[in-house]
């Protein structure tokens, strides 16, 4: 029984107020209005759903995929199977309803069939002349007939009247396989997409006017009128609405075109994975992707003209800021502060009695207080009133004697942090109508000795600042020198903003990252880092840390960090001009709308753009995960009865993710880390019941260690080790670029598998299997942090695929398995964790590479080894170790019929051996020892929708049930009954 399924979303359909999606062989439904899941039901058997076609009256649903189709009925948003899935001879590409009881299918050999769905009888079959493989097709129902469009592997679309011998037209022009065909006959338009990365619009013109009759088509001219390029890779699908042609591709791009071939908008969705499916009505577009996610995009975003305006002021603006009530503070070259009332379009001019023209302006975090200071220390603080007619009131006017003031920031709503000549940092707090200096600190010397950002801890005893060298300093209450300095955190410009929330420090910078630090004992602990898709990250817009703004080249960008979505992108000319962004909630007659307002100065004018997020932001219907195959997975539960399962996954997309699942819809990536290359293996070491060490390794010989903590449904992360066996690129070749550096003769190394073991309180051992045939052993000193390679041993002449550690008879043993089907056992020293010089026993079990291994200790000093390999076979061996007789393989047993392809996952528990493989089967076999003989018996086999299965992990082993999770292109959790 499957309890959780996530894999490619190969079809989506918008039907009334429900979103239908095909996820593997399951039909999943969601409410459009709130994304809530309604139902998950298996519709096909061993095939992915490729099409969901509602009947005209919307009460029946034709579901097809691969060589099967079936019919479901809908009653009050709940779907029920009407017939058993029908298995046809050929791959179905498209299907339509002809009447309430009759459907037509077009299949891959260019065959059109019609079926009576009440009897599931084949009515008619027509084999078209060109019967080479089709990659796509379209059946267009006419008044009495069907028009057949076949997209061939030979780059052409064949147009045929159903039942005719000869095709009507050949549409030639594409240079690759045709992936999708749509048409709008009222407009006389056909749209095709192809392997050649183009979208083509064809226009149909005919001397006849009624496209329902054959002579219209016989006399039609079909010409390619637009040849459109917007995608960077293959264009998979397209759909048409009244206004737009929408195409999606392998490059994760959604392109919106008008019927004249203009690219109106292009957005990137589904995190760099292919977009497989789409459907649109007149207000929304739904897409399903290779990241296993479903997204809904409002069509209003295509031409959404943000409410853009130019503020008419007579002044020449220098700096602009939004206030709490969405009015604007504008500074000018003169000795005047301008307060612009957005509702009345009026400016209130406030004279300043400053003596220097150099002016610094700052806004408190509540946006109500505006501080203006000149270089000489003349400080004015204004407050915007909360009620009544908006206006600014001066609440403080004073002169500070701090020397030349070089920077000023608000730290919260009461404190101002100044930095003056000589690196003098002064913290002032408002008191009555003046400012009281509460602390002084000294900034260590640096080139431009002032602050870029600062934040004060709630308890006021810790000040954190960033300087122009990119360092972050922590000052303790009234101690002049920094208690702790973290060097070069955000490159040479320094952090652009610093926030502190519950001891977690969040910094942004112009190196495209957000970094998280934790304050502990007068210092920081580096926690984690988030890479964003734009270089210049300026600040967060909300306390929760969901929206962040910054610049990508010449555009002002607002980004949703939680959902990894770009929200707004406005071309403004770049980040060096004056600008501001505010997020706010607008009460629109009792309806609360989340809005964004952007402002920037260009050609001495102030431009303001307002966005209502509902109109532009895509909604996550089902959260996505890895964009490519998952190579490794481990599950973790805090307690046996904990309903929450954590999934730690590493993938071909170079990411390591931690996700939770309680219910299906809650499977959600909580944190994402990046590796340099693919993540091939990971293991966990429990630290406490809600904290684990995650050791991950993979391409570029990289090993990472992190502590992951589980608190409720949130994750805390601390990155501890990031190590490359061969050194980083810089370590390997210095500052030379690749052209100049000499050829490095050493082999590249991938880490294929990893194991972690706690030697003692201080030392953790890491064992790695490498693609150059070496087993490398590392020692990590948890206290000192040193990570060193202490041993390299070699037995296998070729790549080692698997490495596993187990304990038998109080001995720690490492097993390694290679591409030649060989298994080696190594004894591990209990003193220092190193391996013996050579293996204690070597076996050859499989014909070729071993892709899965498990071990079950069956008695004092004997254990059963089970291996599954590229030869489809599962081998089991009873091995005895130590003692007088030394190591010996006692007996062996193999079964060859469990799988027809590579066996990549294997779990050996008491009495049960569960295997899985690329053939997408999960096989349970019971096993037992009769004396020294291993006996097995087939119990059950089931099919999994996850393709390219890379492995399996046991989630839960309790009583009569074994719950396993298979992973590959997606994940599936399956519950198996024990014998």
């Amino acid at each position: 029984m499957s309890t959780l399924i996530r894999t490619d979303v190969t079809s989506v359909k918008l039907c009334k107020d429900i979103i239908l999606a095909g996820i593997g062989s399951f039909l999943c439904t969601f409410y459009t209005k709130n994304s809530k899941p309604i139902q998950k039901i298996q519709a096909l058997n061993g095939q992915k759903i490729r099409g969901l076609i509602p009947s005209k009256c919307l009460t029946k649903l034709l579901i097809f995929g691969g060589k099967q189709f079936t019919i479901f009925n809908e009653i009050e948003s709940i779907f029920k199977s009407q017939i058993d899935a029908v298995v046809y001879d050929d791959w179905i590409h498209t299907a339509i309803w002809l009447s309430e009881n009759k459907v037509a299918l077009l299949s891959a050999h260019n065959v059109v069939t019609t079926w009576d769905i009440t009897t599931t009888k084949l009515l008619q079959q027509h084999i078209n002349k060109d019967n080479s493989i089709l990659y796509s097709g379209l059946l267009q129902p006419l008044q009495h007939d069907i028009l057949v469009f076949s997209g061939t592997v030979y780059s052409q679309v064949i147009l045929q009247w159903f039942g005719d011998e000869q095709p009507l037209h050949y549409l030639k022009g594409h240079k690759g396989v045709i992936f999708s065909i749509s048409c709008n006959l009222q407009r006389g338009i056909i749209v095709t997409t192809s392997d050649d990365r183009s979208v083509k619009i064809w226009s149909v013109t005919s001397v006849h006017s009624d496209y329902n009759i054959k002579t219209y088509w016989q006399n039609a001219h079909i010409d390619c009128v637009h040849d459109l390029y917007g995608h960077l890779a293959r264009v998979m699908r397209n759909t048409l609405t009244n206004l737009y042609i929408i195409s999606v591709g392998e490059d994760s791009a959604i392109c919106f075109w008008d019927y004249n071939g203009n690219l109106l908008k292009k957005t990137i969705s589904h995190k760099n994975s292919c977009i497989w499916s789409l459907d649109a009505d007149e207000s929304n577009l739904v897409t399903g992707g290779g990241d296993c996610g479903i997204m809904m995009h409002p069509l209003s975003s295509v031409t959404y003209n943000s409410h853009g305006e130019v503020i008419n002021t007579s002044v020449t603006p220098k700096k602009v800021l939004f206030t709490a009530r969405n009015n604007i503070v504008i500074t000018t070259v003169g000795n005047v502060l301008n307060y612009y009332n957005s509702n009345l379009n009026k400016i209130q001019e406030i004279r300043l009695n400053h003596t220097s023209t150099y002016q610094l302006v700052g806004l408190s975090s509540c946006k109500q207080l505006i501080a203006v200071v000149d270089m000489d220390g003349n400080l004015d603080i204004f407050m915007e009133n909360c009620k009544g007619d908006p206006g600014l009131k001066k609440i403080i006017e004073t002169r500070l004697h701090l020397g030349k003031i070089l920077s000023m920031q608000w730290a919260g709503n009461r404190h101002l942090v100044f930095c003056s000549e000589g690196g003098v940092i002064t913290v002032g707090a408002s008191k009555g109508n003046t400012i009281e200096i509460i602390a002084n600190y000294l900034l260590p010397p640096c080139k431009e000795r002032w602050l870029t950002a600062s934040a004060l801890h709630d308890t006021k005893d810790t000040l954190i600042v960033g300087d122009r060298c990119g360092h972050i300093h922590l000052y303790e209450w009234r101690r002049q020198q920094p208690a702790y300095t973290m060097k070069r955190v955000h490159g040479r410009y320094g952090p652009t903003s610093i926030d502190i929330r519950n001891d977690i420090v969040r910094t942004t910078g112009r190196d495209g990252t957000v970094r998280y630090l934790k304050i502990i004992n007068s210092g920081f602990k580096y926690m984690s880092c988030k890479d964003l898709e734009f270089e210049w990250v300026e600040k967060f817009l909300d306390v929760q840390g969901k929206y962040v703004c910054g610049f990508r080249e010449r555009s002002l960008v607002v980004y949703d960090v939680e959902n990894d979505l770009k929200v707004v992108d406005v071309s403004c000319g770049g980040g060096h001009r004056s600008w501001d962004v505010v997020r706010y909630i607008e009460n629109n007659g009792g309806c609360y709308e989340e809005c964004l307002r952007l402002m920037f100065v260009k050609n001495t004018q102030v431009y303001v753009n307002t966005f209502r997020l509902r109109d532009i932001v895509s909604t996550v219907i089902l959260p996505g995960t890895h964009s490519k195959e998952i190579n490794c997975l481990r599950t973790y539960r805090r307690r046996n009865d904990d309903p929450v399962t954590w999934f730690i996954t590493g993938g071909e997309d170079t990411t390591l993710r931690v996700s939770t699942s309680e219910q299906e819809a809650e499977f959600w990536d909580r944190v994402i880390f990046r590796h340099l290359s693919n993540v091939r293996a990971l293991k966990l070491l429990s630290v406490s019941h809600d904290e684990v060490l995650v050791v991950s390794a993979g391409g570029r010989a990289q090993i990472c260690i992190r502590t992951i903590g589980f608190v409720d449904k949130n994750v805390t992360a601390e990155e501890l080790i990031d190590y490359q066996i061969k050194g980083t690129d810089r370590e390997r070749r210095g500052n030379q670029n690749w052209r100049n550096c000499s050829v490095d003769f050493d082999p590249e190394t991938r880490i294929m598998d990893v194991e972690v073991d706690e030697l003692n309180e201080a030392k953790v051992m890491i064992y790695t299997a490498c693609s150059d045939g070496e087993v490398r052993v590392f020692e990590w000193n948890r206290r000192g942090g040193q990570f060193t390679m202490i041993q390299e041993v070699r037995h296998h002449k070729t790549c080692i695929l698997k490495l596993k550690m187990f304990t038998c008879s109080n001995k720690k043993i490492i097993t390694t398995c290679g591409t030649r089907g060989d298994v080696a056992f190594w004894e591990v020293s209990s003193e220092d964790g190193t391996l013996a010089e050579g293996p204690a026993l070597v076996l050859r079990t499989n014909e070729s590479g071993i892709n899965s291994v498990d071990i079950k200790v069956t008695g004092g000093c004997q254990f059963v080894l089970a291996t599954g390999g590229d030869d489809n076979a599962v081998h089991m061996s009873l091995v005895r170790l130590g003692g007088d007789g030394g190591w010996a393989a006692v007996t062996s047993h193999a079964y060859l019929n469990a799988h027809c392809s590579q066996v990549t996952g294997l779990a050996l528990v008491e009495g049960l051996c569960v295997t899985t493989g690329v053939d997408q089967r999960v096989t349970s076999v019971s096993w037992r020892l009769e004396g020294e003989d291993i006996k097995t018996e087939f119990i059950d086999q089931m099919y999994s929708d996850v393709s390219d299965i890379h492995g399996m992990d046991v989630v839960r082993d309790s009583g009569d049930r074994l719950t396993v999770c298979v992973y590959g292109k997606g994940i599936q959790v399956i519950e198996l009954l024990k014998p």
Partner: protein
Amino acid sequence: MGKTSKDKRDIYYRLAKEEGWRARSAFKLLQINEEHNIFNGVLRAVDLCAAPGSWSQVLTKKLRQNAENDDDVKIVAVDLQAMAALPGVKQIQGDITKISTANEIIKEFEGLKADLVVCDGAPDVTGLHDIDEYVQSQLLLAALNITTHVLKNGGVFVAKIFRGKDVTLVYSQLKLFFEFVTVSKPRSSRNSSIEAFVICQNYSPPPGYVPTMINPLLDHKYCDFNQLTGPNRFIVPFIACGDLSAYDSDTSYPLLLEGQSSYEYKEPVQGPIDPPYKDVLEKTKSMQINNS
């Protein structure tokens, strides 16, 4: 990334360049032969889906050892795409689903039938395993269909197969036409790759079977003796091929291999001809398509 890193990552890619093969797949056919002796006594061979031509290269080299006179060896290479010429190989640019192509092959063999048919064809993969496997199995069945026109009784058929979820259907289909069907994976094929090769020996079509190209061969459906899931699935024997001491395609080797004293970078033997994206690159050279 330096240009040597590809040489490092894949030993057979590098060896192919050094030994003058057009693609690393040449080693796969060589290793299949090591295990199954498929070239024994073969004089007439057909290479289906031949481009870029590495298997034809292997056939030329190996089959000439079977004859005293090079002219007695006939090799026909069929592909839809154009392929750079190879001495001793007759090229037919044609569709393997057309009877005319079969007739052309027979004509080339002067009315005789082939001793061996090989097919290393694979579709452009879409990224969805099920359809890729389906298209691959259809390609294999199309190759089998033309093979039934051109292969002599007792002949050998070798083809690439994707060992995916429905591979047992292809096995049971092949078993109808050949006495021995085994699946084999050369050491030069990566462990992580879904590809393998079926070696079908002793061609003996069912009694009364008349080859036809009018209808394509459709793959089998699951049935009692070949279930979707269960103990009765049609699984053929697996044999790994290639010497155990041969290089391993998953292993990272140093640039200086054992027994070598120098390394020199070599350009690929034959670059791609006319890829589908060629036009787009031409047309969009002046345009800027950005994903931002």
